Protein backbone atom coordinates (compact mmCIF):
# COMPACT_ATOMS: atom_id res chain seq x y z
CA UNK A 1 0.00 0.00 0.00
CA UNK A 2 1.35 3.42 -0.94
CA UNK A 3 1.15 5.94 1.85
CA UNK A 4 2.04 9.55 1.57
CA UNK A 5 2.79 10.60 5.10
CA UNK A 6 3.19 9.15 8.53
CA UNK A 7 0.47 6.69 9.53
CA UNK A 8 -0.50 8.59 12.71
CA UNK A 9 -2.48 11.14 10.73
CA UNK A 10 -6.22 10.79 10.20
CA UNK A 11 -7.09 8.90 7.01
CA UNK A 12 -8.66 11.04 4.28
CA UNK A 13 -9.24 8.87 1.22
CA UNK A 14 -8.55 5.14 1.49
CA UNK A 15 -8.80 2.58 -1.29
CA UNK A 16 -8.34 -1.00 -0.23
CA UNK A 17 -7.72 -3.64 -2.94
CA UNK A 18 -10.06 -1.89 -5.33
CA UNK A 19 -10.97 -3.48 -8.66
CA UNK A 20 -12.93 -1.68 -11.33
CA UNK A 21 -13.37 -2.01 -15.07
CA UNK A 22 -15.66 -1.61 -18.03
CA UNK A 23 -16.40 -4.83 -19.90
CA UNK A 24 -13.12 -6.69 -20.29
CA UNK A 25 -10.96 -3.60 -19.63
CA UNK A 26 -9.60 -3.53 -16.11
CA UNK A 27 -8.99 0.09 -15.10
CA UNK A 28 -8.14 -0.53 -11.46
CA UNK A 29 -6.58 -3.87 -10.57
CA UNK A 30 -6.49 -4.28 -6.82
CA UNK A 31 -5.41 -0.70 -6.06
CA UNK A 32 -4.63 0.06 -2.41
CA UNK A 33 -3.88 3.68 -1.68
CA UNK A 34 -4.26 6.18 1.11
CA UNK A 35 -4.26 9.95 1.33
CA UNK A 36 -4.28 11.54 4.76
CA UNK A 37 -6.83 14.11 5.77
CA UNK A 38 -5.91 17.67 4.81
CA UNK A 39 -3.35 16.53 2.25
CA UNK A 40 -3.26 16.79 -1.51
CA UNK A 41 -2.23 14.50 -4.33
CA UNK A 42 -2.55 14.14 -8.07
CA UNK A 43 -3.27 11.09 -10.16
CA UNK A 44 -1.33 11.14 -13.39
CA UNK A 45 -1.64 8.98 -16.45
CA UNK A 46 -2.19 8.92 -20.16
CA UNK A 47 -5.63 9.45 -21.68
CA UNK A 48 -7.77 6.39 -21.07
CA UNK A 49 -5.60 5.13 -18.22
CA UNK A 50 -8.53 5.46 -15.79
CA UNK A 51 -7.70 8.69 -13.92
CA UNK A 52 -11.27 9.99 -14.05
CA UNK A 53 -12.59 6.57 -13.01
CA UNK A 54 -10.11 6.54 -10.13
CA UNK A 55 -11.45 9.91 -8.98
CA UNK A 56 -15.09 8.77 -9.25
CA UNK A 57 -14.33 5.61 -7.30
CA UNK A 58 -12.32 7.49 -4.66
CA UNK A 59 -15.19 9.96 -4.20
CA UNK A 60 -17.64 7.08 -3.83
CA UNK A 61 -19.64 8.14 -6.88
CA UNK A 62 -19.22 4.76 -8.53
CA UNK A 63 -18.87 1.58 -6.52
CA UNK A 64 -15.87 -0.67 -7.11
CA UNK A 65 -16.46 -4.21 -8.34
CA UNK A 66 -14.30 -5.46 -5.47
CA UNK A 67 -12.57 -3.84 -2.51
CA UNK A 68 -13.59 -0.93 -0.33
CA UNK A 69 -13.34 2.86 -0.35
CA UNK A 70 -13.35 4.99 2.78
CA UNK A 71 -13.67 8.74 3.20
CA UNK A 72 -12.43 9.67 6.64
CA UNK A 73 -13.23 6.51 8.54
CA UNK A 74 -16.53 5.95 6.74
CA UNK A 75 -16.94 3.07 4.30
CA UNK A 76 -18.84 4.60 1.37
CA UNK A 77 -20.65 1.52 0.13
CA UNK A 78 -23.42 1.76 2.71
CA UNK A 79 -23.75 5.56 2.85
CA UNK A 80 -26.30 7.40 0.76
CA UNK A 81 -25.11 10.76 -0.62
CA UNK A 82 -27.16 12.78 1.89
CA UNK A 83 -26.08 10.58 4.79
CA UNK A 84 -22.49 11.38 3.83
CA UNK A 85 -23.19 15.09 4.25
CA UNK A 86 -24.94 14.48 7.59
CA UNK A 87 -21.76 12.73 8.75
CA UNK A 88 -19.66 15.76 7.83
CA UNK A 89 -18.27 14.41 4.53
CA UNK A 90 -18.85 17.32 2.18
CA UNK A 91 -17.63 16.62 -1.33
CA UNK A 92 -16.75 19.03 -4.07
CA UNK A 93 -16.32 17.39 -7.45
CA UNK A 94 -15.44 19.22 -10.64
CA UNK A 95 -16.25 16.97 -13.59
CA UNK A 96 -14.23 16.94 -16.76
CA UNK A 97 -17.33 17.61 -18.87
CA UNK A 98 -19.23 19.84 -16.46
CA UNK A 99 -21.90 17.50 -15.06
CA UNK A 100 -24.08 20.59 -14.64
CA UNK A 101 -27.87 20.40 -14.32
CA UNK A 102 -29.04 21.21 -17.83
CA UNK A 103 -32.54 22.41 -16.92
CA UNK A 104 -31.41 24.78 -14.15
CA UNK A 105 -29.83 28.18 -14.59
CA UNK A 106 -26.35 28.96 -13.28
CA UNK A 107 -27.62 30.38 -9.98
CA UNK A 108 -29.84 27.34 -9.27
CA UNK A 109 -27.02 24.95 -10.16
CA UNK A 110 -25.03 26.40 -7.28
CA UNK A 111 -27.85 27.04 -4.80
CA UNK A 112 -29.55 23.63 -5.17
CA UNK A 113 -27.19 21.71 -2.81
CA UNK A 114 -27.42 24.56 -0.30
CA UNK A 115 -31.24 24.37 -0.22
CA UNK A 116 -31.13 20.58 -0.11
CA UNK A 117 -28.84 20.60 2.93
CA UNK A 118 -30.24 23.81 4.38
CA UNK A 119 -30.97 22.28 7.81
CA UNK A 120 -27.68 20.35 7.99
CA UNK A 121 -25.63 23.42 7.03
CA UNK A 122 -27.78 25.73 9.19
CA UNK A 123 -28.35 28.31 6.46
CA UNK A 124 -31.19 30.79 6.10
CA UNK A 125 -32.65 31.53 2.65
CA UNK A 126 -30.77 34.82 2.66
CA UNK A 127 -27.49 33.12 3.60
CA UNK A 128 -27.97 30.65 0.74
CA UNK A 129 -28.37 33.45 -1.78
CA UNK A 130 -25.34 35.21 -0.33
CA UNK A 131 -23.18 32.06 -0.43
CA UNK A 132 -24.28 31.35 -4.01
CA UNK A 133 -23.26 34.83 -5.13
CA UNK A 134 -20.00 34.52 -3.21
CA UNK A 135 -18.86 31.34 -4.98
CA UNK A 136 -20.12 32.50 -8.39
CA UNK A 137 -18.10 35.71 -7.96
CA UNK A 138 -15.09 33.73 -6.79
CA UNK A 139 -15.24 31.51 -9.87
CA UNK A 140 -15.66 34.68 -11.98
CA UNK A 141 -19.08 33.72 -13.38
CA UNK A 142 -20.46 37.07 -14.50
CA UNK A 143 -23.76 38.25 -13.03
CA UNK A 144 -25.35 38.47 -16.49
CA UNK A 145 -25.00 34.67 -16.69
CA UNK A 146 -26.70 33.93 -13.35
CA UNK A 147 -30.06 33.21 -15.00
CA UNK A 148 -28.55 31.44 -18.02
CA UNK A 149 -28.85 27.72 -18.68
CA UNK A 150 -25.52 25.85 -18.90
CA UNK A 151 -26.14 25.00 -22.57
CA UNK A 152 -25.96 28.72 -23.39
CA UNK A 153 -22.64 29.25 -21.62
CA UNK A 154 -19.18 28.97 -23.15
CA UNK A 155 -16.94 26.03 -22.20
CA UNK A 156 -14.88 28.24 -19.90
CA UNK A 157 -17.99 29.64 -18.19
CA UNK A 158 -19.36 26.13 -17.71
CA UNK A 159 -16.09 24.96 -16.19
CA UNK A 160 -16.06 27.95 -13.81
CA UNK A 161 -19.69 27.29 -12.94
CA UNK A 162 -18.73 23.69 -12.17
CA UNK A 163 -16.00 24.96 -9.84
CA UNK A 164 -18.45 27.34 -8.13
CA UNK A 165 -20.96 24.56 -7.62
CA UNK A 166 -18.31 22.23 -6.19
CA UNK A 167 -17.28 24.93 -3.70
CA UNK A 168 -20.83 25.77 -2.63
CA UNK A 169 -21.19 23.48 0.39
CA UNK A 170 -17.68 24.27 1.72
CA UNK A 171 -16.26 20.87 0.83
CA UNK A 172 -13.71 19.11 3.00
CA UNK A 173 -12.98 16.62 0.19
CA UNK A 174 -12.30 18.20 -3.16
CA UNK A 175 -11.88 16.25 -6.41
CA UNK A 176 -10.90 18.00 -9.63
CA UNK A 177 -10.92 16.08 -12.89
CA UNK A 178 -8.50 17.52 -15.45
CA UNK A 179 -8.21 21.14 -14.26
CA UNK A 180 -6.12 22.14 -17.28
CA UNK A 181 -7.93 20.57 -20.22
CA UNK A 182 -8.94 23.00 -22.97
CA UNK A 183 -9.28 26.02 -20.71
CA UNK A 184 -8.76 29.63 -21.63
CA UNK A 185 -6.19 31.62 -19.68
CA UNK A 186 -8.78 33.18 -17.36
CA UNK A 187 -10.45 29.90 -16.41
CA UNK A 188 -7.12 28.13 -15.98
CA UNK A 189 -6.01 30.96 -13.69
CA UNK A 190 -9.19 30.66 -11.59
CA UNK A 191 -8.77 26.88 -11.38
CA UNK A 192 -5.12 27.15 -10.32
CA UNK A 193 -5.75 29.79 -7.70
CA UNK A 194 -8.60 27.84 -6.19
CA UNK A 195 -6.57 24.63 -6.18
CA UNK A 196 -3.68 26.43 -4.55
CA UNK A 197 -5.91 27.74 -1.75
CA UNK A 198 -7.60 24.39 -1.24
CA UNK A 199 -4.19 22.78 -1.01
CA UNK A 200 -3.17 25.27 1.67
CA UNK A 201 -6.34 24.63 3.67
CA UNK A 202 -5.63 21.95 6.33
CA UNK A 203 -9.32 20.97 6.51
CA UNK A 204 -9.50 20.04 2.82
CA UNK A 205 -8.30 16.78 1.31
CA UNK A 206 -7.54 17.46 -2.34
CA UNK A 207 -7.26 14.96 -5.17
CA UNK A 208 -6.64 15.95 -8.78
CA UNK A 209 -6.59 13.89 -11.97
CA UNK A 210 -4.38 15.32 -14.66
CA UNK A 211 -1.92 14.33 -17.33
CA UNK A 212 0.20 17.44 -16.90
CA UNK A 213 3.07 17.18 -14.46
CA UNK A 214 3.56 20.94 -14.78
CA UNK A 215 0.42 21.54 -12.71
CA UNK A 216 1.47 19.31 -9.84
CA UNK A 217 4.94 20.84 -9.85
CA UNK A 218 3.34 24.26 -9.58
CA UNK A 219 1.08 23.13 -6.77
CA UNK A 220 3.95 21.21 -5.20
CA UNK A 221 1.90 18.10 -4.47
CA UNK A 222 2.86 14.43 -4.83
CA UNK A 223 1.82 12.63 -7.99
CA UNK A 224 0.88 9.02 -8.54
CA UNK A 225 0.88 7.40 -11.90
CA UNK A 226 -1.94 5.12 -13.01
CA UNK A 227 -0.80 2.62 -15.58
CA UNK A 228 -2.35 -0.73 -16.48
CA UNK A 229 -4.65 -0.54 -13.48
CA UNK A 230 -1.80 -0.09 -11.01
CA UNK A 231 -0.75 3.01 -9.10
CA UNK A 232 2.90 3.95 -8.67
CA UNK A 233 4.64 7.02 -7.29
CA UNK A 234 5.29 9.39 -10.18
CA UNK A 235 8.68 10.94 -10.76
CA UNK A 236 7.97 14.66 -10.67
CA UNK A 237 9.88 17.72 -9.56
CA UNK A 238 9.18 18.04 -5.84
CA UNK A 239 9.16 21.84 -5.58
CA UNK A 240 7.69 24.69 -7.52
CA UNK A 241 10.14 26.46 -9.80
CA UNK A 242 11.78 29.45 -8.15
CA UNK A 243 10.08 32.76 -8.73
CA UNK A 244 6.71 31.14 -9.47
CA UNK A 245 3.83 31.97 -7.21
CA UNK A 246 0.06 32.18 -7.46
CA UNK A 247 -1.48 35.63 -7.34
CA UNK A 248 -3.27 35.88 -3.96
CA UNK A 249 -6.18 37.77 -5.49
CA UNK A 250 -8.97 35.25 -4.92
CA UNK A 251 -9.75 34.15 -1.41
CA UNK A 252 -12.21 31.30 -0.90
CA UNK A 253 -14.81 32.66 1.48
Amino acid at each position, binding site marked *: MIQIEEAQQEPGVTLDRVHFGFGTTDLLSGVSWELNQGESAAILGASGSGKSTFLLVAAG*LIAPVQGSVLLGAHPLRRLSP*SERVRRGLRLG*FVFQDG*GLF*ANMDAFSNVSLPLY*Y*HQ*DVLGLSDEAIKERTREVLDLAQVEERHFQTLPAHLSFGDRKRLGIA*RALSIRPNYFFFDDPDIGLDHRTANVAHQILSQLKADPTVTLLIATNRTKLIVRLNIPGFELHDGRLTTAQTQSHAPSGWSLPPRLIIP
Partner: protein
Amino acid sequence: MSRATPTSSLLEHLGARTLHVVDVAQRLVGTLVFALRSSSAPGLGAKAVVRELSVRQIFFTSAQALPMIGAVATFVGATLTAQTELLGGPFQRETAGKVLVAVVLRELAPLVTAIIVAGRSGTAIATELGMMRVNSEILGLASLGIDPPRFLIWPRLVATTISVPILTIYFSAVAIVSGNVTAFLIDSHGLEEWRVGAMLALSPLDLPLMGIKTLGLGLLVGWLCCYYGLDVGSSPTEVPQKASRAVVQSLFACIAYNALITVLYYWLFGATVT
Protein backbone atom coordinates in the same frame (compact mmCIF):
# COMPACT_ATOMS: atom_id res chain seq x y z
CA MET B 1 -10.31 -29.52 -26.93
CA SER B 2 -13.88 -29.83 -25.66
CA ARG B 3 -16.74 -28.96 -27.98
CA ALA B 4 -20.12 -27.60 -26.82
CA THR B 5 -23.00 -30.00 -27.45
CA PRO B 6 -26.42 -28.63 -28.49
CA THR B 7 -27.76 -29.53 -25.04
CA SER B 8 -25.00 -27.69 -23.18
CA SER B 9 -25.30 -24.59 -25.37
CA LEU B 10 -29.07 -24.58 -24.85
CA LEU B 11 -28.54 -24.85 -21.10
CA GLU B 12 -25.97 -22.04 -21.27
CA HIS B 13 -28.43 -19.88 -23.18
CA LEU B 14 -31.22 -20.64 -20.72
CA GLY B 15 -28.90 -19.95 -17.78
CA ALA B 16 -27.78 -16.62 -19.24
CA ARG B 17 -31.38 -15.64 -19.98
CA THR B 18 -32.48 -16.53 -16.44
CA LEU B 19 -29.62 -14.53 -14.93
CA HIS B 20 -30.57 -11.57 -17.13
CA VAL B 21 -34.23 -11.76 -16.06
CA VAL B 22 -33.23 -12.00 -12.38
CA ASP B 23 -30.90 -9.01 -12.82
CA VAL B 24 -33.61 -6.88 -14.47
CA ALA B 25 -36.15 -7.86 -11.79
CA GLN B 26 -33.68 -6.95 -9.04
CA ARG B 27 -32.95 -3.54 -10.56
CA LEU B 28 -36.62 -2.91 -11.22
CA VAL B 29 -37.54 -3.66 -7.62
CA GLY B 30 -34.48 -1.69 -6.49
CA THR B 31 -35.72 1.42 -8.33
CA LEU B 32 -38.98 1.35 -6.38
CA VAL B 33 -37.50 0.32 -3.03
CA PHE B 34 -34.75 2.98 -3.09
CA ALA B 35 -37.28 5.67 -4.01
CA LEU B 36 -39.67 4.65 -1.23
CA ARG B 37 -36.88 4.33 1.32
CA SER B 38 -35.22 7.62 0.38
CA SER B 39 -38.53 9.49 0.63
CA SER B 40 -38.58 8.97 4.39
CA ALA B 41 -34.91 9.87 4.92
CA PRO B 42 -34.26 12.77 7.33
CA GLY B 43 -33.54 16.29 6.11
CA LEU B 44 -35.96 19.21 6.25
CA GLY B 45 -34.18 21.03 3.45
CA ALA B 46 -34.37 17.95 1.24
CA LYS B 47 -38.07 17.52 2.06
CA ALA B 48 -38.84 21.08 1.02
CA VAL B 49 -36.89 20.78 -2.24
CA VAL B 50 -38.52 17.44 -3.11
CA ARG B 51 -42.01 18.75 -2.23
CA GLU B 52 -41.55 21.66 -4.63
CA LEU B 53 -40.31 19.32 -7.35
CA SER B 54 -43.28 16.98 -6.81
CA VAL B 55 -45.76 19.85 -7.14
CA ARG B 56 -44.08 20.92 -10.38
CA GLN B 57 -44.20 17.33 -11.70
CA ILE B 58 -47.88 16.97 -10.74
CA PHE B 59 -48.65 20.22 -12.57
CA PHE B 60 -46.82 19.01 -15.67
CA THR B 61 -48.40 15.54 -15.57
CA SER B 62 -51.97 16.50 -14.74
CA ALA B 63 -52.80 20.16 -15.35
CA GLN B 64 -50.99 20.36 -18.68
CA ALA B 65 -52.66 17.13 -19.85
CA LEU B 66 -56.21 18.40 -19.26
CA PRO B 67 -56.89 19.67 -22.82
CA MET B 68 -55.79 16.41 -24.42
CA ILE B 69 -57.67 14.23 -21.90
CA GLY B 70 -60.76 16.42 -22.37
CA ALA B 71 -60.68 16.06 -26.14
CA VAL B 72 -60.17 12.28 -26.06
CA ALA B 73 -62.92 11.83 -23.43
CA THR B 74 -65.36 13.88 -25.53
CA PHE B 75 -64.79 11.68 -28.56
CA VAL B 76 -64.94 8.45 -26.53
CA GLY B 77 -68.22 9.44 -24.81
CA ALA B 78 -69.81 10.54 -28.08
CA THR B 79 -68.77 7.56 -30.19
CA LEU B 80 -69.69 5.02 -27.50
CA THR B 81 -73.18 6.50 -27.13
CA ALA B 82 -73.66 6.69 -30.89
CA GLN B 83 -72.56 3.07 -31.36
CA THR B 84 -74.84 1.66 -28.63
CA GLU B 85 -77.65 3.76 -30.04
CA LEU B 86 -77.03 2.27 -33.49
CA LEU B 87 -76.94 -1.26 -32.05
CA GLY B 88 -79.90 -1.03 -29.71
CA GLY B 89 -82.11 1.58 -31.34
CA PRO B 90 -84.70 3.66 -29.46
CA PHE B 91 -85.80 0.77 -27.20
CA GLN B 92 -82.37 0.28 -25.67
CA ARG B 93 -81.71 3.78 -24.28
CA GLU B 94 -81.34 2.48 -20.73
CA THR B 95 -78.81 -0.12 -21.89
CA ALA B 96 -76.88 2.59 -23.73
CA GLY B 97 -76.59 4.56 -20.48
CA LYS B 98 -75.49 1.45 -18.60
CA VAL B 99 -72.90 0.56 -21.23
CA LEU B 100 -71.41 4.02 -21.22
CA VAL B 101 -71.00 4.11 -17.44
CA ALA B 102 -69.71 0.55 -17.15
CA VAL B 103 -67.30 0.74 -20.05
CA VAL B 104 -66.06 4.27 -19.47
CA LEU B 105 -65.89 4.38 -15.69
CA ARG B 106 -64.57 0.89 -15.11
CA GLU B 107 -62.40 0.28 -18.15
CA LEU B 108 -61.77 3.03 -20.64
CA ALA B 109 -61.26 6.04 -18.38
CA PRO B 110 -58.46 4.52 -16.22
CA LEU B 111 -56.80 2.76 -19.14
CA VAL B 112 -56.96 5.55 -21.71
CA THR B 113 -55.82 8.08 -19.09
CA ALA B 114 -52.84 5.89 -18.14
CA ILE B 115 -51.99 5.44 -21.83
CA ILE B 116 -52.05 9.21 -22.39
CA VAL B 117 -49.92 9.81 -19.26
CA ALA B 118 -47.45 7.12 -20.41
CA GLY B 119 -47.25 8.59 -23.89
CA ARG B 120 -46.97 12.17 -22.73
CA SER B 121 -45.23 12.23 -19.34
CA GLY B 122 -43.67 8.75 -19.48
CA THR B 123 -41.64 9.64 -22.56
CA ALA B 124 -40.60 12.90 -20.94
CA ILE B 125 -39.54 11.11 -17.74
CA ALA B 126 -37.51 8.42 -19.52
CA THR B 127 -35.88 10.89 -21.91
CA GLU B 128 -35.03 13.43 -19.21
CA LEU B 129 -33.53 10.85 -16.86
CA GLY B 130 -31.67 9.21 -19.74
CA MET B 131 -30.13 12.52 -20.78
CA MET B 132 -29.19 13.21 -17.19
CA ARG B 133 -27.34 9.88 -17.11
CA VAL B 134 -25.49 10.63 -20.33
CA ASN B 135 -24.49 14.13 -19.16
CA SER B 136 -23.19 12.89 -15.76
CA GLU B 137 -25.88 14.97 -14.02
CA ILE B 138 -26.78 12.06 -11.77
CA LEU B 139 -23.15 11.77 -10.66
CA GLY B 140 -23.27 15.53 -10.15
CA LEU B 141 -26.27 15.17 -7.82
CA ALA B 142 -24.59 12.40 -5.82
CA SER B 143 -21.36 14.40 -5.54
CA LEU B 144 -23.32 17.22 -3.90
CA GLY B 145 -24.91 14.87 -1.37
CA ILE B 146 -28.27 14.82 -3.17
CA ASP B 147 -29.88 11.37 -3.25
CA PRO B 148 -30.85 10.60 -6.88
CA PRO B 149 -33.76 8.28 -5.90
CA ARG B 150 -35.27 10.96 -3.68
CA PHE B 151 -34.61 13.86 -6.03
CA LEU B 152 -35.39 12.16 -9.34
CA ILE B 153 -37.59 9.09 -8.88
CA TRP B 154 -39.80 9.97 -5.91
CA PRO B 155 -41.32 13.22 -7.33
CA ARG B 156 -42.07 11.49 -10.63
CA LEU B 157 -43.66 8.48 -8.92
CA VAL B 158 -45.78 10.81 -6.78
CA ALA B 159 -46.79 12.83 -9.84
CA THR B 160 -47.93 9.89 -11.98
CA THR B 161 -49.61 8.11 -9.04
CA ILE B 162 -51.61 11.21 -8.10
CA SER B 163 -52.26 12.45 -11.63
CA VAL B 164 -53.78 9.27 -13.13
CA PRO B 165 -56.68 9.16 -10.58
CA ILE B 166 -57.35 12.91 -10.95
CA LEU B 167 -57.27 12.73 -14.73
CA THR B 168 -59.45 9.59 -14.72
CA ILE B 169 -62.18 11.41 -12.78
CA TYR B 170 -61.92 14.28 -15.25
CA PHE B 171 -62.00 11.87 -18.21
CA SER B 172 -65.08 10.08 -16.83
CA ALA B 173 -66.94 13.32 -16.19
CA VAL B 174 -66.23 14.70 -19.66
CA ALA B 175 -67.07 11.37 -21.36
CA ILE B 176 -70.40 11.08 -19.50
CA VAL B 177 -71.35 14.68 -20.30
CA SER B 178 -70.37 14.10 -23.92
CA GLY B 179 -72.43 10.86 -24.00
CA ASN B 180 -75.34 12.72 -22.45
CA VAL B 181 -75.16 15.46 -25.07
CA THR B 182 -74.88 12.91 -27.87
CA ALA B 183 -77.90 10.97 -26.55
CA PHE B 184 -79.85 14.25 -26.43
CA LEU B 185 -78.82 15.15 -29.99
CA ILE B 186 -79.87 11.73 -31.27
CA ASP B 187 -83.22 11.73 -29.52
CA SER B 188 -84.12 14.22 -26.80
CA HIS B 189 -87.18 12.15 -25.73
CA GLY B 190 -85.10 9.12 -24.72
CA LEU B 191 -82.67 11.13 -22.58
CA GLU B 192 -84.39 10.30 -19.29
CA GLU B 193 -84.16 6.56 -19.99
CA TRP B 194 -80.49 6.99 -20.83
CA ARG B 195 -79.89 8.77 -17.50
CA VAL B 196 -81.74 6.10 -15.53
CA GLY B 197 -79.60 3.44 -17.18
CA ALA B 198 -76.43 5.34 -16.39
CA MET B 199 -77.43 5.71 -12.71
CA LEU B 200 -78.42 2.05 -12.45
CA ALA B 201 -75.04 0.95 -13.72
CA LEU B 202 -73.24 2.75 -10.90
CA SER B 203 -72.28 0.65 -7.89
CA PRO B 204 -70.70 1.69 -4.56
CA LEU B 205 -67.88 -0.70 -5.43
CA ASP B 206 -66.94 1.42 -8.43
CA LEU B 207 -65.13 3.87 -6.17
CA PRO B 208 -62.62 1.41 -4.64
CA LEU B 209 -62.27 -0.31 -8.02
CA MET B 210 -61.39 2.97 -9.68
CA GLY B 211 -59.04 3.85 -6.82
CA ILE B 212 -57.12 0.58 -7.02
CA LYS B 213 -56.96 0.71 -10.78
CA THR B 214 -55.87 4.30 -11.19
CA LEU B 215 -53.35 4.38 -8.33
CA GLY B 216 -51.77 1.16 -9.61
CA LEU B 217 -51.71 2.35 -13.22
CA GLY B 218 -50.13 5.67 -12.23
CA LEU B 219 -47.49 3.94 -10.15
CA LEU B 220 -46.70 1.50 -12.97
CA VAL B 221 -46.20 4.28 -15.53
CA GLY B 222 -43.91 6.32 -13.23
CA TRP B 223 -41.99 3.30 -12.02
CA LEU B 224 -41.27 1.74 -15.43
CA CYS B 225 -40.42 5.05 -17.09
CA CYS B 226 -38.01 5.99 -14.27
CA TYR B 227 -36.41 2.55 -14.46
CA TYR B 228 -35.82 2.69 -18.22
CA GLY B 229 -34.62 6.30 -18.06
CA LEU B 230 -32.03 5.45 -15.43
CA ASP B 231 -31.06 2.29 -17.32
CA VAL B 232 -29.42 4.39 -20.05
CA GLY B 233 -25.65 3.86 -20.16
CA SER B 234 -23.32 6.53 -21.44
CA SER B 235 -24.40 6.81 -25.06
CA PRO B 236 -27.00 9.37 -26.23
CA THR B 237 -28.28 6.86 -28.83
CA GLU B 238 -29.62 4.75 -25.95
CA VAL B 239 -31.95 7.56 -24.83
CA PRO B 240 -34.62 7.24 -27.57
CA GLN B 241 -34.32 3.44 -27.46
CA LYS B 242 -34.96 3.33 -23.71
CA ALA B 243 -37.69 5.96 -23.94
CA SER B 244 -39.55 3.94 -26.54
CA ARG B 245 -39.09 0.74 -24.51
CA ALA B 246 -40.33 2.58 -21.41
CA VAL B 247 -43.57 3.59 -23.13
CA VAL B 248 -44.18 0.22 -24.80
CA GLN B 249 -43.54 -1.69 -21.55
CA SER B 250 -45.72 0.78 -19.61
CA LEU B 251 -48.59 0.30 -22.06
CA PHE B 252 -48.29 -3.46 -21.87
CA ALA B 253 -48.09 -3.39 -18.06
CA CYS B 254 -51.09 -1.03 -17.84
CA ILE B 255 -53.29 -3.21 -20.09
CA ALA B 256 -52.30 -6.37 -18.19
CA TYR B 257 -52.84 -4.72 -14.78
CA ASN B 258 -56.21 -3.29 -15.84
CA ALA B 259 -57.37 -6.69 -17.07
CA LEU B 260 -56.14 -8.42 -13.91
CA ILE B 261 -58.03 -6.03 -11.62
CA THR B 262 -61.20 -6.31 -13.73
CA VAL B 263 -61.10 -10.12 -13.61
CA LEU B 264 -60.46 -10.06 -9.86
CA TYR B 265 -63.32 -7.58 -9.36
CA TYR B 266 -65.87 -9.72 -11.20
CA TRP B 267 -64.53 -12.89 -9.60
CA LEU B 268 -64.88 -11.42 -6.11
CA PHE B 269 -68.09 -9.40 -6.44
CA GLY B 270 -69.86 -10.75 -9.52
CA ALA B 271 -71.75 -8.52 -11.92
CA THR B 272 -72.98 -5.50 -9.97
CA VAL B 273 -74.86 -4.08 -12.94
CA THR B 274 -78.53 -4.83 -12.54
